[in-house]
């Protein structure tokens, strides 16, 4: 979606939320202060984000919304609270990142999802047999609404997130699924508050916030470690380059192309991060090349792949990554075969991405010529499906326009 559209759409949604919220507040039999209090809570929760395993940052707003859904029974008041809350949240989001478009495009997703959440709660409460005092009912309804919220949000994200054209919708969907632990803890905190507030009053605040704070701490720690783990691997992968045994920047560029291909063909996020590590380290075997005995004896691509795999497999957690590196030199099929199923998809991607980077930087070819070269090798060496995806990735990056 274009930047202007996102801008206008988010402004329109803000005004719609404000208008709809005020109208609903006017028709609701409830007093104004609980509505405003709830709206303020929902808006303030948008101040805080929690890093989720997918690398995204989630707003705590849904936690507050869950609590509100437990506490406010009147449908008009509920809708009004959440709509006004989102209107206030707009001010917060835009005030925090005035020039940043991602804040606005996030807002689109959040509003759509939260309104879907509110409507689901309201609709499910309509049937005659519904009893607001039966907590099991309320919990079931809010849980269903939570699932709706999650789906709509993921859907909205994958639509609004399309400024990155190289991401497949499947990848984004799987990425959103990674975050279930964070979402469950947000819902639980909200539900505990909603259930406890009528009985415990303000004690419900520490009751909901303390356990969430522990989880929050854990999520933040996890995220930080994940980042430094990536940095560590990146640093180690560059050692052969620093030692002058491999082309400078090759592993970094190969990894970026490989990850883009994997996202384009919709690999699972776990596999993508494995592929990222493997492609970063695919040349680590070159470290052995400062061994005089080895230089005298000569070596093949297979040797390099095997040595690299041996080094990587020293780390027990990277065994799978080592396997991918070990297989990276293999052609995607052997003579007389349609396809060699024993070659992992990730290894084939590394082969293509690495060859593309070599064509650009060692042979100094233009992107188009490099693609032609890879397509020429598609009889046995490079899987045509992956080279096709590479072409999409390269053109989405705008590298082809220069020709």
């Amino acid at each position, binding site marked *: 979606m274009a930047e202007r559209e996102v801008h206008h759409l988010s402004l329109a949604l803000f005004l719609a939320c404000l208008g709809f919220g005020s109208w609903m507040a006017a028709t609701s039999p409830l007093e104004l202060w609980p509505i405003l209090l709830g709206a303020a809570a929902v808006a303030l929760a948008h101040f805080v984000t929690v890093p989720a395993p997918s690398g995204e940052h989630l707003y705590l707003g849904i936690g507050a919304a869950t609590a509100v859904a437990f506490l406010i029974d009147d449908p008009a008041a509920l809708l009004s609270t959440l709509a006004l809350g989102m209107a206030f949240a707009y001010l917060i989001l835009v005030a925090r990142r005035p020039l940043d478009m991602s804040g606005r495009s996030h807002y689109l997703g959040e509003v759509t999802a939260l309104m879907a959440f509110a409507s689901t709660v309201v609709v499910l409460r309509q049937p005659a047999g519904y009893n607001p005092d039966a907590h099991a009912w309320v919990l079931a309804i809010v849980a269903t609404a939570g699932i709706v919220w999650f789906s709509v949000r993921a859907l909205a994200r994958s639509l609004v997130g399309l400024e990155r054209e190289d991401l497949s919708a499947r990848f984004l969907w799987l990425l959103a699924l990674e975050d279930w632990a964070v979402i469950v803890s947000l819902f*639980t905190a909200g539900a505990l508050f909603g259930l406890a507030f009528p009985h415990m009053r303000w*004690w419900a605040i520490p009751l909901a916030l303390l356990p969430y704070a522990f989880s929050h701490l854990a999520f933040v720690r996890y995220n930080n470690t994940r980042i430094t783990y990536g940095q560590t691997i990146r640093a180690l992968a560059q050692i052969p380059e620093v030692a002058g045994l491999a082309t400078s920047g090759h592993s970094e560029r190969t990894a970026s192309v490989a990850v883009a291909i994997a996202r384009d063909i919709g690999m699972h996020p776990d596999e993508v991060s494995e592929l990222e590590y493997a492609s970063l380290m695919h040349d680590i075997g070159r470290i052995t090349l400062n061994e005089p005995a080895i230089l005298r004896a000569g070596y093949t691509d297979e040797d390099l792949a095997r040595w690299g795999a041996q080094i990587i497999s020293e780390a027990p957690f990277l065994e799978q990554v080592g396997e991918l590196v070990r297989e990276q030199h293999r052609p995607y099929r052997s003579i007389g075969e349609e396809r060699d199923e024993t070659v992992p998809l990730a290894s084939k991607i590394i082969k293509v991405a690495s060859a593309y980077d070599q064509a650009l930087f060692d042979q100094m070819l233009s992107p188009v010529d490099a693609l032609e070269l890879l397509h020429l090798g598609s009889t046995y060496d490079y899987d045509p499906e992956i080279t096709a995806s590479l072409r999409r990735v390269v053109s989405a990056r705008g590298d082809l326009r220069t020709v």
Partner: protein
Amino acid sequence: MLLAVGFVLAGAGILVWLLLPGRLPDPPWLLIVFAAVGVYFDWTAVEINDHLVISTSLLVQLTAAVVFADSEPVVAVAIIAALSPFQPIDFRLRRWFEPAVNFGQLVISASAAISLFAYLAPNAAVDSQNLPRFVLAATAASVLQGALNFTLVQFIFRTVFGARQVRPWSNMFNIMLPYLGTGLLAALLGGAYHMINVDGTLALSLITLSLIFVVFFVSQMTFVSYARLREAQDSTLRGFVKALEAKDLYTRGHTERVAYFSELIGTRMGFNGTRLEKLRWAALIHDVGKLAVPRDLIRKRARLSGNEYEQMQTHVHLVEDLLAEVDFLQPMVEIAAHHHAHFDGKGYHGGHKHEGTPSVEARILAVADSFDAMTSTRSYRGGSTPEPSSILRSSRRSSR
């Protein structure tokens, strides 16, 4: 041996004495649920070298104390605590000492702590008027449990290993803070169970319970994956170091040994969790720079010429700069880069201009590094058996 028997007898004695009157916590199914959850969390528990982390099993025990506040909380928590030390891994490895001692130790500290809890909040109904009282009681019990546990573990360590205290008492305050939080949270969770559950219907107590357990579960799970990731990072670096050493027969195992010696020295000097870990990491990476140095330079039997020496240092610095880009590794790289600096501020400063004395960590690393270099075989000379006095004398130059 005698100690283990003593602890088992003490723990079993307390359990029997508690159970003898025949009053069991009510309802029994709730106790079974809590015991199962407690055991589950103990089985999946991971060790995190950190002060701020709460123990999920302690949280479960204290929550159980509040939930059973009106029917034998001491018995309930003693039973939960008694079950937790028996873990499948102990049976597989046929270990009996640790679970036996833990059994006694946990039953003693849990029953003492919950007795204090029951004394501070005797048979009171858990409602909004009494909640502050329960918060106080649970916090006090939590702190007592922590202190008892700490003291008993210290005692066991001293008797079994004859070692000095693992962690000095001065750290107690840092450790106590999470216990305060645990106590507060347990009182609130247990209070929520009673207060939401006014009419006492089964469905409602199940909802409240499952929400409470989901809270436990998610934070435990995240901490587990956090710990696993850290282990992965650790093992990755370790693996690379190993791979480097595998290529060079002479330095094989050097890094592991230096890490081990540094850790020993650090422990002796009273370093605790995070600081000790940092030191170990620094030791692990102190030679990674050599990965990038041409092998014939590392192996060269003759003295290096000035030019060659410079070439070697350039490569080492390039790698150090590379690792310093990792935020988390940056302080460790600094330690590792300074381990050639001398105590008096002279000596080789790792190429980066730095004034003053190197940090304690860098000095420890220097000692450990020299010690291993002197006692093992290097390409330019054979090994010598450790002769403590002579080694200490030459080490004195670089650090004290």
